[in-house]
């Protein structure tokens, strides 16, 4: 949320997608988040995914709750309607919006405090209802806007910036989403744009509840020794089932290597990470297998990234409710109102 709009001029030679839109058409206002915030990288990935999919920006409804993550819808798709609702309640607002007009694309952006604490119930129920949406959690394990309290995804034993040790167990939103029947479940890392962009694109294309948990280091309050959501910690504990490319700003790094192999890549800041392409035997259509895989790696303290589960034949809440194809918000009295003749019959039955 910012007072400052981006300048409208742009290079005439910018690349265009199938609809003739450039990247600029998918951008929003200038971010006021901290420089280096992982959330801005997620914003960039959303912009990239929507550009690549040639989505009409105004056909997207972007809905969020409250918190740093929930500010981000202001920073992408400036020609879309956005809704920054109340803390933890994005899922219900999105569900209602979706029921009103099934023809739009719904992007729900939330944070770990928003979704794993105050909004845990709404997160769970929107997933189990199969609302057709892309639900992105920008997960940094900390409350940024209130300056550094633990969130429910903070790992037990991790330390706050003030040195307090977290004694509560962490909630793994991906594990919960799988258990609740989400039909598209993924996890990624904010800096791993090449992994995150296709995941977001696939989630948007999925009919049903798509959930992506994106680890997104908080540069201000959760990027220190002792945190398990810091850049350093995530680099050291990442075990990607697809592929991983940690980016701390700047240009993306291109890598080319064979499936099943591991490649060490040096980043802009000189750090090195190990990339592992998806295991040959990993089956993203096996919900139980995904749950087991996730639990096995969680026990080792590793963060699994990639597309963990997808049901390509899923349907959504509208299918469950058997609603008409016409968006409900376009129906008028001539089709909604039973009329006076019916009312006369109702009156007669009440005597």
């Amino acid at each position: 949320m910012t007072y400052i709009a981006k300048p409208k001029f742009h290079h005439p030679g910018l690349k265009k997608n199938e609809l003739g839109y450039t990247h600029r058409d998918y951008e929003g206002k200038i971010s006021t988040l901290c420089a280096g915030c992982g959330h801005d990288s997620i914003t960039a990935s959303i912009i990239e995914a929507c550009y690549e999919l040639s989505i009409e920006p105004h056909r997207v409804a972007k809905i969020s709750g409250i918190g740093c993550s929930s500010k981000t819808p202001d920073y992408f798709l400036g020609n879309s309607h956005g809704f920054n609702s109340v803390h933890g309640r994005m899922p219900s607002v999105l569900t209602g919006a979706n029921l009103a007009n099934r023809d739009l694309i719904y992007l729900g952006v939330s944070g770990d405090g928003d979704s794993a604490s105050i909004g845990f119930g709404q997160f769970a129920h929107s997933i189990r209802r199969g609302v057709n949406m892309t639900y992105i959690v920008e997960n940094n394990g900390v409350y940024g806007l209130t300056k550094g309290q633990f969130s429910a995804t903070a790992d037990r034993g991790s330390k706050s910036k003030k040195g307090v040790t977290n004694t509560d167990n962490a909630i793994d939103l991906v594990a919960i989403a799988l258990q609740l029947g989400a039909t598209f479940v993924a996890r990624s890392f904010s800096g791993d744009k090449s992994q995150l962009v296709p995941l977001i694109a696939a989630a948007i294309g999925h009919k049903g509840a798509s959930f992506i948990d994106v680890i997104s280091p908080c540069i201000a309050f959760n990027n220190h020794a002792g945190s398990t959501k810091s850049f350093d910690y995530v680099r050291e504990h990442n075990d990607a089932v697809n592929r991983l490319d940690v980016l701390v700003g700047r240009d993306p790094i291109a890598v080319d290597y064979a499936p099943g192999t591991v490649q060490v890549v040096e980043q802009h800041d000189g750090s090195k990470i190990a990339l592992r392409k998806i295991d040959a035997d990993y089956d993203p259509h096996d919900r139980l297998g995904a749950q087991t895989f996730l639990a096995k790696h969680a026990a080792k303290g590793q963060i699994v990234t990639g597309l963990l589960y997808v049901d390509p034949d899923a349907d959504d809440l509208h299918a469950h409710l058997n609603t008409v194809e016409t968006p409900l918000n376009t129906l008028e009295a001539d089709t909604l109102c039973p009329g006076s003749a019916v009312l006369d019959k109702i009156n007669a039955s009440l005597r």
Partner: protein
Amino acid sequence: MSDKKPISSVNDFVVRFANVNGSGSASANEMFARAILRHGVPVSPRNIFPSNIQGLPTWYEVRVTEAGHLGARGGVDMMVAMNPQTWDKDVAGIEPGGYLFYDSTKPMPSTKFRDDITVIGVPLTAITNSTYTDPRQRQLFKNIIYLGALSALLEMDPRLIEQLIGEQYKGKEKLLSSNVHALHLGRDWALQNLKCPIGLRVKKSDKVGDRIFIEGNSAAALGAVYGGATVCAWYPITPSSSVAEAFTAHCKKYRHDPETGKAKYAIVQGEDELASIGIVIGASWNGARAFTATSGPGISLMTEFIGLSYFAEIPAVIMNIQRAGPSTGMPTRTQQCDIIACAYASHGDTKHVLLFPEDPAEAFEFAAAAFDLAERLQTTIFLMLDLDIGMNHRLCRPLKWDDAKQYDRGKVMTAEMLEEGRDFGRYLDVDGDGIPYRTYPGTHPTKGSYFTRGTSRDRYARYSEEGSVYADNMQRLVRKFETAQDLVPRPLQANAERPTKYGVIYFGSTSPAMDEAIGLLEERGHQLDRLRIRAFPFHSSVASFLAEHDFVYVVEQNRDSQLRQLIVNENGIDPVRLVPIVHYDGTPITARYIAKAIGDHQDHLKVTPLRKAVS
């Protein structure tokens, strides 16, 4: 032997059934009320039930009232005492000269009766046990058997009851015939063994007319169907659950596309009240007509979202079926106790539109109108029912609908309007009525999009923490609320036969008791002008009414006289001139109560001043 002459009354008495919750008596008791209606005699029934499923006491009271008084009267002329647990209280509640009907299978000591009432014993258990072997049948048919005995005692036409049984069990011949059989078992036993009829009698009349018999919750739900609601999100809570259940039933009947069979509605049972109102707000933001139904505790949970609806200016309809609070209070008892909570719901400076229907007919009309108001005003509209209207069958005028009516979708800027170059500022007051234009998401590729938020913003929806910008917005919201005054249902005034300095204000379910109380007060020599408030914000005629009277009584069903507080607050009137008349024990207010409270106060006003007495 009675030492008081038995009450003798035709078509004007109160029968109360005392039962045990879960005994299956509700169906028989309601059939008793309906049977009297079929005689052409108005009835006013009330279900008084506990907040559990089985075992606790429950009462069903039927006021037989040829004069058409639909409020509770108070007092019981005939007690059908079927619950040993409440026997003493039930017997004590009978009016002198009244009647006690009981199951005489087991002998009762004489101390359990009163000398000033007529005791009528029917060996119900013995009759049922000798006829039925199945325990559940014994229980259920016992209720029909006492209905049969009552039909003889009150001289009711059994054919009308048979007709009702026929309608209820249409297509279920076995149940139909067995119920008719049980009815005659009781009726025949009474005719053969008791002096029939007694002093209380039902005589055929023509006082019902074309009126209908319906619960307020069902009527409100039907109003939502007619009003164009397409999204309903709710969470079960007494006494509002039947609104959503009725809406579901009505939609299943009237809202499916005949060609595809698909639903032109979406109903979601939310995980809680927060989600329910969130769904409503999301749907309304996106241009659908949406509502939720709840009661006081639900309102408490929804208040954060209600503040968002007010500040972000998103339509929402909340049907609040009030019950006794605070906290869990008495979940199955009636009150009008959420007035303040709803009028100013949420934090910061808020004001919300409240509608107060008096009966199911108005519940239907106001429910339908609520969606027009919500979209016109882009804010939350509360339909304020209570348990007494919501969950009781009430006789009311037939529901009416004008087929020429189109929905008022409010100020919505379309793609065409944007193309024409109309200036779109989400919070611009272009017409001076405080109501801005909105656009639906997805309207136009490059124009009309905006960011909805609960944070302060300028007229073009740009985030701003400038004090002047915030104040400008808040002032416009006040203007919008003033605009609402002329859009909501106006108060209805009825003047006394003679000019008077005294007035009375009332609202909602108090209405029938108030109408009757006026007659009782006139009998005591008191003249009062009446004003029935039907909505908040208050129309200017409320202030005029207050100005025209020295004292105005405000009759309501809560402890703190909440409507009076609201009137004082909004009109800046001297509180001394508004006399609170409150009733808040969870039972519906009665004409007797109102007449006594106002009458005593009026008598007090007429006391000769002391200086005159000593001069």
